[in-house]
């Protein structure tokens, strides 16, 4: 039997977003207007029908507003009886006259309320749900559910086992794309379901004691390349997103099926398991159409998607589960230490580009094969940062999990005339010439050896003025260690007597946005045969080298993270470690390990991500 699981979620939203458009066009806001509610329910009914016609069961996430609508409640009950759909609850769609009366707020995002309000809203929403249905929901969700919110839900309503908990890489990129007006700043989470930590929802739990008690599901299955590079709201399994991104031709949308199939292919990297989901409300499917498309095309986009899900199910290639069913299935065979991985391939621009994504309780990172396997994103999950969001907290809207490397936000491989950008890569040097693997485009393959996952890159040629070397990079990921072994191997050279320096480096910073944060107090330390060197970051451009390096360490107190590089103990006498402090115009820190070889040779280093405190 296949282990490709599908989850389709619908929500009967009574006051969908297009009401606001009408308000902009001169109609005063009226959140109880019956014509809107009728149309909204009609769309919900259509979505349910299309799913069922294709043999797909759904999870109906009742909005708070819909709990006051007898027709919506009756529809949910009827489809639960007839098709086995799950009736869950969502914190999207809370706004209605009753909510305004009770909470006197126009806030629409549950994670942005104060903690006091979150508790009161949870109790009100769940209480009303129980009053209407006679039981409590076992699944819930929103665009984002902070750990503090979920911890409270689990404390009061322990039966909840699943939640739509974040939207992958919906952060500054989506914010900018929405004209700096869409406050879903949620970067840094996993792209596929995970069991979150009690301390931070983005981080996979380390063990049973850290397990928050739900299985988290991302809002939509997103294109792991296009969404990382571009707007978060254009490329995913929400049909409207694809239309908004205009990824179609002659009203045909093969891209949707390409996304689904690439998610199916994730079974190759995840012990036979794969997942895909669609989560839609009614607002985008208005009879009047929207700017993205007219109604027939909106409807078609949804029908095409659901038909493909249905086809996969009929062919025995997919299993449709409700959210709570999926949570049970997921937990059946999921050790906490097991990473989620994928070697994502471009399905949009016609390149051969690949990104390798990895997430486990220690870190999330991404390797870009277009940049010779450079690490372009690194999130230190090991820190398990307690970072509440919402009114009354230090961050309010910024719910992203901090990075220490994000090459798009912080320059990456640097083409500017001054300074450095955040990236982990390797340079090869000879007689004043220097070539970074970031400039060596390649492809990768994935394999496993017991508990070690291996990403092997195709060799690349590095051309110096007078000779050429062939270099291969291998990343070895031993489960449960929080460590990445990186091998840079010179396979051949056209000048065996020439010396080549191999320089493995990590240039990093920290933050959640494009803008620099204060690095004051970051500690850079080298330990090795020739001694110990350590500085506290003060933007003074200091550098140091230690021979026979044991470890090169950066401690970033601001994100409670320790990043350390070590060399192969057997090769230690041949290696040197270094750090490099930046300046205000280049707010980065660099740690690295280097070695000089003649002819063939290799440099083997390990990068470890730990909680600093």
């Amino acid at each position, binding site marked *: 039997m296949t282990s490709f699981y599908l989850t389709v979620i619908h929500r009967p939203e009574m006051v969908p977003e297009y009401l606001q458009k009408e308000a902009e066009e001169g109609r005063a806001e009226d959140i109880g207007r019956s014509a809107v509610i009728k149309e909204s329910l009609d769309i919900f009914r259509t979505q349910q029908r299309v799913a069922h016609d294709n043999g797909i069961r759904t999870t109906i996430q009742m909005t708070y507003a819909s709990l006051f609508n007898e027709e919506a409640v009756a529809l949910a009950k009827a489809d639960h009886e007839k098709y086995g759909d799950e009736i869950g609850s969502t914190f999207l769609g809370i706004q209605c006259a009753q909510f305004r009366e009770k909470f006197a707020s126009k806030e629409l995002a549950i994670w942005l309320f104060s903690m006091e309000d979150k508790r009161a809203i949870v109790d009100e929403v769940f209480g009303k749900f129980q009053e209407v249905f006679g039981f409590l929901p076992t699944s819930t969700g929103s665009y984002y559910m902070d750990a503090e919110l979920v911890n409270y839900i689990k404390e009061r309503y322990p039966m909840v086992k699943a939640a739509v908990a974040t939207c992958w890489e919906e952060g500054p990129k989506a914010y*900018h*794309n*929405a*004209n700096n007006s869409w406050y879903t700043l949620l970067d840094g989470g996993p792209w596929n379901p995970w069991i979150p930590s009690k301390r931070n929802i983005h981080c996979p739990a380390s063990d049973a004691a850290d397990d928050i008690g739900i299985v988290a599901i991302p809002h939509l299955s997103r294109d792991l390349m296009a969404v990382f590079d571009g*707007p978060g*709201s*254009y490329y995913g399994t929400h049909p409207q997103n694809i239309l*908004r*991104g*205009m*990824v*179609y*031709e*002659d009203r*045909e949308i*093969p*891209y949707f*099926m*390409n996304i689904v*199939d*690439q998610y*199916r*292919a994730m079974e*190759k990297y995840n012990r036979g398991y794969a997942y895909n989901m669609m989560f839609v409300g009614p607002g985008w499917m208005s009879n009047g159409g929207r*700017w993205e498309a007219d109604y027939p095309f909106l409807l078609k986009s949804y029908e095409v998607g659901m038909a493909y899900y249905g086809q996969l199910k009929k062919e025995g290639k997919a299993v449709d589960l409700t959210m709570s069913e999926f949570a049970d299935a997921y937990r059946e065979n999921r050790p906490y230490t097991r990473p989620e991985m994928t070697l994502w*391939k*471009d*399905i*949009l*621009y*016609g390149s051969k580009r690949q990104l390798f994504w990895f997430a486990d309780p220690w870190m999330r990172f991404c390797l870009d094969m277009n940049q010779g396997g450079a690490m372009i994103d690194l999130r230190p999950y090991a820190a398990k940062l307690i970072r509440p969001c919402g009114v009354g907290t230090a961050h309010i809207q910024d719910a992203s999990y901090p990075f220490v490397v994000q090459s798009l936000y912080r320059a990456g491989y640097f083409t500017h005339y001054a300074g450095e950008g955040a990236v982990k890569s390797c340079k090869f040097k000879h007689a004043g010439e220097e070539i970074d693997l970031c400039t060596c485009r390649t492809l990768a393959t994935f394999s496993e050896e017991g508990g070690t996952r291996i990403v092997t890159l195709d060799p690349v040629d590095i051309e110096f003025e007078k000779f050429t070397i062939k270099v291969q990079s291998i990343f070895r990921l031993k489960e449960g260690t929080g460590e990445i072994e990186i091998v840079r191997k010179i396979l051949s050279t056209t000048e065996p007597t020439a010396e080549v320096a191999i320089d493995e480096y990590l240039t990093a910073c920290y933050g959640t946005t494009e803008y620099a944060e204060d690095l004051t107090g970051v500690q850079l330390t080298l330990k090795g045969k020739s001694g110990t060197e350590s500085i506290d970051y003060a933007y003074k451009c200091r550098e140091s080298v230690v021979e026979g390096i044991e470890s090169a360490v950066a401690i970033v107190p601001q994100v409670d993270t320790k990043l350390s590089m070590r060399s192969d103990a057997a090769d230690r006498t041949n290696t040197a470690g270094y750090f490099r402090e930046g300046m205000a115009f280049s707010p980065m820190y660099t740690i690295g390990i280097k070695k000089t070889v003649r002819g063939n040779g290799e440099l083997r280093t390990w990068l470890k991500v730990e909680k600093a405190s």
Partner: protein
Amino acid sequence: MREIDMDMLFDPDKAEYYCLRCSFVGPEAEVLRLNAEFRSKYLDRAVRITDF
């Protein structure tokens, strides 16, 4: 042009769209031409890919 997801306004007197966010102005045909140009960067927009 689509790098920001923002509706344009239409001026019926001049039969042209204009943007509140930048200085773009143009008739519907020009908007459609630029939309097509935006799509053209997606070389695989019409390709069914099954080899993963």
